[in-house]
């Protein structure tokens, strides 16, 4: 399962953090630096496995914990309707 950013969002990176404006519900979201790294990958689309591999390269943390974190983050982005599944 691949995920990508929904097309109806405006976002901008300021230093290492992404600000996302969702014009559908007038919400502003800000991601922390790890979330922003993942957002960068989601621009092109990626699976959870691909995201985990990328974050692991940067941070080298326990793979199991990292996978759980990434899954939780993806769920949160889905719940807020900021990303969508494809393929």
């Amino acid at each position, binding site marked *: 399962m691949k995920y990508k950013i929904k097309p109806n969002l*405006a*976002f901008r990176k300021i*230093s290492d*953090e992404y600000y996302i404006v969702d014009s559908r519900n007038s*919400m*502003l979201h*800000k991601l922390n630096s790890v979330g922003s790294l993942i957002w960068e990958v989601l621009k092109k689309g990626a699976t959870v496995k691909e995201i985990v591999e990328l*974050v692991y390269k940067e941070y080298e943390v326990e793979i199991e*914990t990292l996978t759980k974190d990434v899954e939780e983050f993806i769920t949160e982005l889905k719940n807020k309707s900021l990303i969508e599944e494809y393929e």
Partner: protein
Amino acid sequence: MNGSKTISAKIVVNLKLYEKSCKDKYLFENGQKSKEYTEFIREDIYFKYNFVKNFAEAKINKNVYSIDSVLRILYSILLAKNSGILFHAAGITIDNYGYLFVGPTGSGKSTTIKWFRKNFKNYKSYIELSDELVPVKVKGGKIYTWQSLFWGELKNKTVFQQGDISMFTLKKIYFLSGFNEKTQLVTPVGIKETVELLLKNLFWVVNSQMFANDILKTVTNIAMTVPAFKLYPPLHNDYNFVEILK
């Protein structure tokens, strides 16, 4: 690998920017949904803006408040199309530089203008820009402000600029931050927090991705160019304090 190290991807801010006021209408072209226009409907107002034709129409009750509301919406759209934004702010100029005092209703915008009026009305090139909504625009890498059409409680007591409207370089932004016991009345604000505070205080009723992109870009440009501070009233009644503000 450090097994004890933990990192966590998070959404650290979830903030409602403005109440959704306009209702978007869509057309279907080749089976695809495409936005055509946005509507603003209130008891006394019907306002419609067509994104494709860049055309606005309105039906308004014959009273100054309704006309003022429609002009605010239309002005904010036209401004957004030209790298500009209306902010909930009071604004003044001193020595031909603009200063903004940004904050929501009740934060002290009119009080700030009254204070400047009392202490500064004879000061060189002192002009009041507004006590409610101030326009700001990015042009050629610089940030400009000018006198607003839109005023709050001071609207009947304001001397408007004569002739052409002058544009002033925006020198500093102050966020009105409520009364505080801190001895330091002015504290600097970083770029990220400035972006958040500006987004929280923009006048905007249209929900459109196209404009959201423009607005985010404009706000970021402003935050990266103009120094911003938090200002804790009460303001001091002396010229030294004004020198600090400048």
